[in-house]
């Protein structure tokens, strides 16, 4: 009896859960309403079968439970009943399958007026490439990929020069225009998925896959990587920003093409040394850092990292949080530098300095720290030497008190919260893996041994 | 089809005299069934390898091992020699089987010995072939065609070795029990396995020495 009641309650409970659940498809933002319709059809059919089969089951158990003197029927088979059930099932299956196949046929046939853009996946970030003025995406090949050419554009292909390269989290698209998204990966499998668009497709190194859709609703929609791609898989986030045509045109105008990127001059060391003078009070004359002034070591950090942080300070991406008092001190100091070229000069000069050896201040267990560092090492390098391809700075030979404070800042969302701080956002997710002070001490103790 | 008739039986009806339909089976039949399954499994294994080979062959970095004058298997004479060795092993075992069935001990012993000898010779010759390929600079990682060549020959060789172990076991048991009469049945199965491996080898041989165009045609037929 308990079982009968339980079965009935489970069926009713499932239905109530379904109706009351606040967790359901996010509101649609693309043309793929037909996908939702297909889901609904299947949901109704399967829901009916679920209720019917289980209520019949419950009734049978109730009606035919063992009572003294009861005897079961003897009926090896009942062909007509079985045939009927088979036929009805087949009809139900066809009713579910047919719309699915029709929608799929739409899904794989890209409309001719769709604009082609490219999404590039790599561990663990998204980048985008737009065709530029000539309307054609340039050729690419894995062997051309380098620090200066992250997309692997073919230098001999004239169509490549004006391709707009967007090394940023956000892809902007105009509403109402179909796009064919070519999907490419540099390293492992990824999956381009935007829940609101109902599209999803793996990205495979060595081949190009695609999806197409027409964004119909303005807004910002998360791109999630949905194919396991390694340790920081869950931190591989991007966004599609759908906007009206004018806003989109403005945004396009701000993007730089490949030839623009190649034209940026390198930093000048001598000019950098001069421009550094005001910084030395807190960061030391040779960039070795100064604990008394809370200034971290800068020497030996990679140029691209210093440059990015200076730009973030100048743009209010870092040092703008109200709880980030030290960052707030730094932000105006970064503004003292004359302009982008000065930033490049200082960064280049600092990167050229010998690596300092700061004093250690933490006590911890380096062995346990090494275990914690396993995850960090995926980006920051096995010896904490940093990795330019992942834009992960060197951690070795940094002041441990500084690293501790930054970890806390990330964990508490004081650093990396800004929409434009793509790596900071990832660090928030990663830094949360370590919560206890002891674990952080162990980690820092390990870093001090490197 | 007896399968369908069997599946169509209504077992709850018990016709009289039905009870004796199945007497306990001849034990030889069990081994025969097992061997059929083994051949099916090994067949599937090689089939899958070959399918991946054809699929992989359609990527641009694949270079067939035959077709052009500088490629090693354009002249496949070495492979023909090896094929001959394996064929001889098969034939010798068949003769040994003949001997065992007719109770001619000498022929049985000679056949089995020759079979083992030619099988081992085949394995050695295959190793020699690897050495030859390496001396030409065709290393395993150089090209997927090379990788497949080493891989498929190695897997085939391992199956020959497995056969040799079973054959040794059979011979040892017969010798130990001192009864030639029980030899012919297991030897028959071994012989069948050898013929099967020879057939597999012929397929591999044909595939690995195919020219690029042939491979492409095959791949196209498979839809790659």
């Amino acid at each position, binding site marked *: 009896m308990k*079982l009968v009641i339980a079965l009935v309650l*489970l069926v009713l409970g*499932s239905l109530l859960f*379904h109706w009351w659940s606040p*967790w359901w*498809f*996010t509101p649609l933002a693309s043309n793929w309403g037909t996908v939702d319709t*297909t889901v609904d059809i*299947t949901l109704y059919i*399967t829901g009916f079968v679920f209720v019917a089969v289980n209520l019949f089951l419950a009734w049978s*158990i109730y009606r*035919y439970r*063992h009572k003294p003197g009861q*005897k*079961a029927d*003897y009926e090896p*088979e009942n062909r007509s009943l079985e045939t009927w*059930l*088979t036929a009805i099932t*087949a009809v139900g299956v066809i009713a*579910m*399958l047919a719309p*699915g*196949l029709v929608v799929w046929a739409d*899904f794989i046939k890209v409309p001719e007026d769709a604009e082609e853009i490219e999404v590039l996946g790599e*561990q663990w970030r998204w980048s985008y490439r737009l065709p530029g003025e000539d309307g054609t995406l340039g050729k690419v090949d894995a062997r051309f990929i380098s620090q200066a050419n992250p997309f692997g554009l073919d230098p001999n292909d004239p169509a490549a020069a004006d391709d707009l390269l967007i090394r940023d989290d956000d892809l902007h698209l105009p509403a109402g225009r179909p796009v064919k998204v070519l999907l490419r990966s540099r*390293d492992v499998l990824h999956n381009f998925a935007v829940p609101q668009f109902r599209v*999803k*497709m793996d990205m*495979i190194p*060595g081949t190009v896959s695609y999806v197409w859709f027409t964004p119909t609703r303005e807004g910002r929609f*998360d791109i*999630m990587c*949905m194919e*396991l791609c*390694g*340790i920081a*898989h*869950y931190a591989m986030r991007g966004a599609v920003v759908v906007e009206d045509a004018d806003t989109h045109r403005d945004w396009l105008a701000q993007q730089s093409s490949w030839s623009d990127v190649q034209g940026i001059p390198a930093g000048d060391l001598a000019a950098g040394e001069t421009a550094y003078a005001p910084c030395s009070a807190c960061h030391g004359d040779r960039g070795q850092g100064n604990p008394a002034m809370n200034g971290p070591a800068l020497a030996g950090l990679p140029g691209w990292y210093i440059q990015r942080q200076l730009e973030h300070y100048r743009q209010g991406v870092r040092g703008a949080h109200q709880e980030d008092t030290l960052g707030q001190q730094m932000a105006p100091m970064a503004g003292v530098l004359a302009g982008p070229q000065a930033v490049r000069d200082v960064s280049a000069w600092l990167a050229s300095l010998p690596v300092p050896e700061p004093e250690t201040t933490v006590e911890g267990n380096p062995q346990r720290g090494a275990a*914690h560092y396993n*995850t960090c090492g*995926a*980006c920051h390098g096995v010896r904490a030497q940093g990795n330019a391809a992942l834009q992960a700075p060197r951690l070795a030979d940094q002041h441990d008190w500084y690293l501790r404070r930054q970890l806390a800042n990330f964990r508490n969302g004081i650093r990396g919260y800004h929409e434009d701080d793509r790596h900071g956002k990832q660090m928030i997710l990663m830094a*949360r893996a*370590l919560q*206890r002070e002891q674990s952080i001490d162990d980690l820092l103790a390990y870093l001090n041994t490197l | 089809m007896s399968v369908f008739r069997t599946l169509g*039986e*209504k*077992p*709850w009806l018990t016709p009289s005299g039905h009870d004796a339909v*199945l007497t*306990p089976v001849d034990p030889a039949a069990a081994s025969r069934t097992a061997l059929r399954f*083994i051949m099916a499994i090994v067949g*599937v294994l090689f089939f*899958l390898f070959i399918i*991946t080979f054809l699929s*992989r062959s359609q*990527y641009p970095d694949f270079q067939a091992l035959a077709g052009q004058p500088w490629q090693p298997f354009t002249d496949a004479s070495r492979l023909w020699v090896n094929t001959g060795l394996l064929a001889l092993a098969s034939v010798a075992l068949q003769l040994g089987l003949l001997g065992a069935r007719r109770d001619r001990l000498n022929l049985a012993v000679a056949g089995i010995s020759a079979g083992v000898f030619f099988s081992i010779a085949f394995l050695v010759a295959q190793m020699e072939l690897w050495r030859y390929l390496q001396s030409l600079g065709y290393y395993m*990682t150089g090209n*997927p065609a090379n990788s497949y060549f080493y891989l498929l020959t190695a897997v085939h060789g391992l199956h020959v070795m497995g056969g040799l172990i079973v054959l040794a076991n059979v011979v040892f048991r017969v010798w130990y029990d001192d009864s030639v009469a029980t030899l012919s049945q297991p030897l028959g199965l071994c012989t069948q396995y050898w013929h099967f491996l020879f057939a597999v080898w012929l397929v591999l041989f044909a595939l690995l020495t195919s020219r690029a165009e042939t491979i492409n045609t095959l791949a196209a037929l498979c839809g790659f």
Partner: protein
Amino acid sequence: MQHTAIADQPAELHDPHSFVTRYIWSQDHKVIAIQYGITAIFVGLVALVLSGLMRLQLGFPDTFDFIDPSAYLQFVTMHGMIMVIYLLTALLLGGFGNYLIPLMIGARDMVFPYLNMLSFWTYLLSVIVLLASFFVPGGPTGAGWTLYPPQAILQGTPGYDWGIILMLISLAIFIVAFTMGGLNYVTTILQARTRGMTLMRMPLTIWGIFTATVLGLLAFPALLVSAIMMLLDKVIGTSFFMPALVSLGESMDYTGGSPILFQHLFWFFGHPEVYIVALPAFGMVSDVIATHARKNIFGYRMMVWAIVAIGGLSFFVWAHHMYVSGMHPAFGFFFATTTLIIAVPTAIKVYNWVLTLWRGNIHLTVPMLFAIGFIFTFTHGGLTGLFLGNVTIDLPLSDTYFVVAHFHMVMGVSPIMVLFAAIYHWFPLISGRKLHEGLGKAHFWFTFLGTYAVYLPMHYLGFLGVPRRYFAMGGSDFIPASAETLNANITIAALIVGLSQLIFLYNVVRTLRRGEPAGHNPWGATSLEWQTPDVPPKHGNWGPELPSVHRWAYDFSVPGAEKDFIPQNQPEKAGGTGT
């Protein structure tokens, strides 16, 4: 060659004399079955603990320092691989297959007992190699149980070095073990059935195990092929699956390989694998239901045909795991169609189980409770499969928690329900003692209600679009805070289910020490395994003479018969003749 399996006078049957030959190097199928069972349940418990750790992280992110992203992925991977291969496959076929085949078809043992023994020890070796990967530098692989290259063998994935190598080697060893065992099962079923045991008189358990074993024998080679080729890619540097790529800023030497090729191979094995687990479960649950409802299984022939049809079709549906893998999209039409066709025989099986209960005489014993629990969970899991099998619906749902919930329902909870039903049902035969009824019922209610509380809500996280295999959700615009609360509740339910398995373990230990003796055929079953002269059956199973079979395995409640069951070996004149 062993002839003992089918001899009436087992002159050659060597009775084991010492402890070692009786319990360790035993060639008795029953001992081997128990060895398989204990090993599989042991690794299963390891995997259960791993799932608890995963759930802790998902339910309460930002709490546990010892679960970092690497460890989380390693737990996910090892949990999946152990549960699918080393627990379910091994326990259903190596454990129950070994125990039941000879007994149910009236043989004395497997036809190749030595090979059978070898199969277990090889399996044990594969388990040891697998577990060894927890102790190598870098730990076990964290590539997900699908082990997709290039990721599985590249930096940036936990255990990309030793972990993955040990995993692939362990799989290869397992396949060897399975092949040795599987050859035995199919050959024994085909060639060692006793007098009168025609194919269509076999219990559905045997049909399920037989078909599953044939699937396994033909599907595992695909896994072997992919494991060998990936191992070569990793160790030697070939490019079977590895395209030209730049890993974490470093250009690798690979050229031109195809990651999709691996996926095809993997799922060519992986989908039949679902049925390798499901078919024996289907078979066993049919027998449990028929016995405890005192009624013949409804539509026996249809059930057999469905098992065979599902087995055959299962080789033509593999790419429904790959709708969004970037393979040629036109494949979607074919595989969606075949996949939904397979729903028809599966649905028929569900109808027939329910129709067996209909007009039955239902004894709600513990095995029956689990069997009915199975019907419920399997119906649920099967129906959600219709979502994922339909290529269009797979677009929004694949790689989300919907998939996780679906396959746990259909491949986790359902087979586990059957396994418990089977353990409660056959324990009196295996040990001679009956498991405690009250404890068994408590175990059932916790397991049944608990797992539903875990997996029903999980589907809805999937509808929402929450991706699977995420260490933490972090902030995302479309995931409301309530989803985090839901996740915490799921974790609590999962931990309760996990802990409630202790009731079962306690029940087993208690019963073995002082359980009530079950006596002969306590459930009044018809099939041969309950008709042995001794309980538990002795070495050789049948005493001096093999049983003769005179009827099918489902003569329950035959009109005119004096009892409500007629054992298969009872001659005609003693009982009713059927219809």
